[in-house]
């Protein structure tokens, strides 16, 4: 079976999404790179707090990119994306609850669970998106 070309609206959407996401990803990588030099043992100062929260800026940019992508999506793509986001949200809640319960039992490190919750939620979201996209084809 020959592979069909994408529609012109597909191409336009993908290009717009790429333009939206790229600056955020580059900024996130650069800022995360600078955080490696952060002395976590030192007493926190105002600048340490500002520096630590700096990754929020590119993350907010990426949230904006995602919202714009949803606005540009056609109706089936929107359903697929929203379902994947709902599954990712559910996974994030479950992971956060698990971390909270473990912390209440004095097991594990809450900071680590926060990272696991964040990364786990994103991974489940991406996996759900891939499965939903595949099913819709």
């Amino acid at each position, binding site marked *: 079976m020959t592979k*069909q*070309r*994408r*529609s*012109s*609206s*597909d191409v336009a*959407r993908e290009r717009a999404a790429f333009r939206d996401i790229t600056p955020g990803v580059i900024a996130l990588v650069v800022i995360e790179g600078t955080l490696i030099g952060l002395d976590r043992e030192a007493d926190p100062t105002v600048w340490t707090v500002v520096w630590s929260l700096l990754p929020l800026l590119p993350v907010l940019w990426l949230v904006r990119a995602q919202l714009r992508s949803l606005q540009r999506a*056609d*109706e*089936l*793509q929107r*359903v697929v994306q929203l379902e994947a986001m709902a599954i990712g949200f559910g996974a994030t809640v479950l992971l956060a609850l698990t971390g909270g319960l473990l912390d209440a039992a004095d097991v594990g490190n809450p900071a680590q669970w926060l990272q696991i919750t964040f990364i786990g939620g994103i991974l489940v979201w991406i996996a759900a998106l891939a499965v939903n*996209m595949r*099913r*819709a*084809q």
Partner: protein
Amino acid sequence: MKNRLRELRASRQWSQSDLADRLDVSRQTVNAIENGRYDPSLPLAFKIAEVFGEPIESMFSPTDEPARKE
């Protein structure tokens, strides 16, 4: 819901991408509608009918009733 999308598209010798261009949707959406995996919204259904120049009721029908042909 059944539809006559594939049949009408084939009669015009349009690819799924050609139809997607005319409807301003993704090729994936056209494919999903043709295969009955996705029922389009009312605005998209009207747009499909308009693109093919057919009345909407001739294009879509409930699953237990075959689509009417003109």
